[in-house]
């Protein structure tokens, strides 16, 4: 299917085939025997059961044979796994942050890219992963690798991409509302292309991010509210401050102008005024989560944004 | 199922056990004032000893059937095993 996409693919697939092969032999053999007995010794054909004693040798055989086979399976699973846990020293390190609900790849020196991981063909890549909120799990099916991203800890995962192409990234640990949208792409490109791409990637200065935006990022607002007009779970933040919105209050439509009071209210009691076309109850109150001071920062951010637009 | 007689322990036995336990508490207390790497293991050991004494005399294991005795210590051993297995993770992280 994806044969050989990473250096682990073949080993994992081999293990899988071995276990599956043994399993199939047992499954088919035992099922066939079962059906054969059910027909051959059916009451109609075989009205009188023949009793016999336990056979010790059989009992021993079916303790020993499965034990040997499972140890074999364990062995293959072990050797093809243990290599996954020790990255070569010269591997290219990329820092990964999984947060509700995006993947952020930091190639160092402020070179940050969201949701798309670009890696050079044939080079060992070592991902150093953490999360600021809850558990996630970084999963590239084609590469046969997965490791949880644990808040408060740094976990590792490495691989050598062996075939050019694009592969899916999934978040495999349940992390809330948009868990199933926390997906991305690994782009495997030639090494030269990678260097070019990295050079062209604009530098994001983390300190230059406005405080209000950083706060919204930190509180996962941007997981549901886009900044470019696209509709996610909640209404987009584009053209917010000073513009008109139609909202539902207790089921009645009202036209309001977005001001500081409206934004504050939407953060603290989000279900009081629901923008038309959206569902009540999807957002929780941030009362006690975002301080008053920080709400002001967020409001300021929206103000500056709309000034730029005007 | 015949009703077996409940074993009656003498008052004196309990008093003795009580005194021993008090001595062990005092002992533990003074050890805790000391310095050194040996202190913690010794404290735990003495706690375990106190536990055994409570189990054997206060809780009558001395006079119970072998079956009951073995499941009690079996279960405690099992708990220790579970803790040890958990530490296979934490010790090698």
């Amino acid at each position: 299917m994806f044969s050989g996409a990473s250096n682990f693919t073949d080993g994992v697939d081999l293990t899988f085939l071995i276990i599956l092969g043994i399993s199939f032999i047992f499954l088919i053999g035992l099922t066939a025997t079962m059906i054969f007995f059910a027909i051959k010794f059916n009451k109609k054909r075989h009205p009188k059961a023949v009793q016999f004693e336990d056979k010790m040798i059989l009992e021993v055989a079916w303790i020993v044979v499965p034990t040997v086979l499972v140890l074999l399976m364990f062995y293959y699973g072990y050797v093809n796994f243990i290599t996954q846990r020790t990255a070569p020293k010269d591997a290219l390190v990329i820092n990964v942050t999984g947060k509700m609900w995006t993947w952020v790849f930091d190639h160092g020196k402020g070179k940050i890219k969201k949701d798309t991981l670009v890696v050079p063909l044939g080079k060992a890549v070592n991902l150093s992963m953490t999360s600021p909120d809850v558990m996630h799990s970084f999963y590239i099916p084609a590469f046969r690798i997965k490791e949880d991203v644990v808040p408060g800890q740094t976990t590792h995962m490495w691989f050598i991409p062996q075939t050019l192409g694009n592969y899916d990234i999934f978040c495999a640990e349940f992390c809330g509302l948009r868990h199933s949208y926390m997906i991305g792409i690994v782009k495997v490109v030639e090494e030269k292309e990678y260097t070019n791409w990295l050079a062209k990637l604009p530098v994001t200065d983390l300190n230059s991010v406005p405080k209000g935006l950083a706060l919204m990022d930190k509180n996962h607002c941007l997981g549901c509210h886009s900044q470019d007009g696209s509709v996610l779970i909640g209404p987009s933040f584009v053209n917010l401050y000073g513009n008109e919105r139609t909202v539902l209050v207790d089921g009645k439509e009202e036209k309001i102008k977005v001001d500081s009071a409206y934004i504050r209210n939407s953060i603290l009691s989000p279900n009081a005024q629901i923008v038309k076309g959206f569902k009540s109850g999807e957002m929780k109150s941030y009362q006690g989560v975002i301080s008053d001071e920080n709400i002001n920062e967020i409001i300021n951010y929206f103000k500056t944004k709309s000034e730029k637009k005007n | 199922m015949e009703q077996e007689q409940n074993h009656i322990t003498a008052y004196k036995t309990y008093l003795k056990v009580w005194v021993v336990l008090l001595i062990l508490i005092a002992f533990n207390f003074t050890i805790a004032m000391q310095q050194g790497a040996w202190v913690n293991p010794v404290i735990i050991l003495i706690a375990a000893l106190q536990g055994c004494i409570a189990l054997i005399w206060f809780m009558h294991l001395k006079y119970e059937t072998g079956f009951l005795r073995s499941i009690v210590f079996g279960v405690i051993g099992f708990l220790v095993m579970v803790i040890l297995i958990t530490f296979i993770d934490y010790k090698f992280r």
Partner: protein
Amino acid sequence: MNTNLNNTLPNYLEHKGKYKGILGWIFSTDHKRIALLYLYSIITFFCVGMLLGVLMRLELFKPGQQFLTPQQYNAAFTIHGVIMVFLVVIPGLAAVFGNFLLPIHIGAKDVAFPKLNLLSWWIYLVGAVIAICTLVFGKGPPDTGWTFYAPYSTTSNTNVVMAVFAAFVLGFSSILTGINFIVTIHRMRAPGMGWFKMPLFTWSLYATSWIQILATPIIGITLLMVVAERWFRIGFFDPALGGDPILFQHLFWIYSHPAVYIMILPAMGVITEIIPTMSQKRVFGYKAIALSSLAIAFVGYLVWGHHMYTSGMSVTARWVFSLLTFIVAVPSAIKVFNWISTMYKGSIDMRPPMLYALSFMFLFMIGGLTGLVLGSLATDVHVHDTAFVVAHFHYIIFGGMGFAFFAAMHFWYPKIYGRMYNMKLAYWAWGILNVGFNLLYFPLFVIGLQGMPRRYFDYLPQFQLGHVLSSIGALVTATGIILMIYNFIRSARKGERAPANPWNGLTLEWMVPSPPPVENFVEIPVITEVPYNFK
């Protein structure tokens, strides 16, 4: 034995006790009535869980949003998991058939503590009602998955505390049943019934009860810690407060892995009753089957880490747990071999109980053998938390425990109600169920291997074929189930009268009338032979 068969005592269904009508049921301490109380409540909750399952399947029919919001979907699989695990399959066989049969199987009049037994059911009911209440009260149903992983569960603002409390209460019920059964087995066996003369269902209940006693408290304390964390901000598992989220997983699985053996051991016991009786054969390897139950209980307690191969646990722990996981597969294998050998040279009666037992073996083998794929480190890293795992556990829980439950229903139905179900309907339901089941879950193995993660509200188009097949399978399965339940309900009143021993069995329940009288036996029988001693 004759006095036991031909007596004029009122049977337990008609018997009039201290209370009349419904009160005579919900306050009855008769183990058989309590068994039926469990049966009815479990089937009710089971239908709720099944409905949620079908809803999820319909939602997943196409990529994109159909009729559930993501939040509703997340709540749906959480409640589905909680109901199915804590309300249906963990009490399932042990509380229904265990209660009904255990005292009769060992020649006793009731369990050791009948009042405690009734209390267990009441606690179960309270826990179940609380669990259902999470759906309607407070800030909406929990959305954490049945695993309640921290720190999501300690920060999600849904009804997590209530759900966790429900699981806590249900744990008590489970513990009390376990205590009751162990004491009953130790103290109330009829004269002459040595340990190795007990029916094998009793053996499996004995092993199950030990797990219930030793594993359940761990989930209790863990869930209490989650509550403490949510209420008092004690950061047991929250990394922001210095806690370790992986420790939560350890504690959760220390209970929840043994819990899967709480589900399957009684199921294995049921199958071990049905196969010898329907084949008129002595069971092959009695001791091996009895002792393998204990082995599964013991080793099965120590393998919890196999749910955490990718969690960030130490590498040493990962391979130790993998090794232990493979070892626990061996006693299960022993049982399968012994069941099949028991059929050899038997005189096999292929009526519904046997059909369900054979289906059980087939599905359990698929579930168990795919468990080996999960137990192996290299492959589990790939398929962990994908639809492959979902397929594994549905095969083994529903195909295993579920089909064993159906087998048990068909086997003991005449004993419980004194009437026989409609054979023709039963064959039809069996056929539909088998087709539907495999259609429902087999595609999930395939898309799991292709990388379809679980708990996904939406999915990429390449997985659609598998999801569509699976959704169709869900509807077929549901048809089969409805047909079966209809058959049971109808036959309880209209079915033909059943004889005392319709399958020609030798265990003690067949030596009393159908339905059994209130205290089972007029004279406590004296046991001289090993069980299943067919001549």
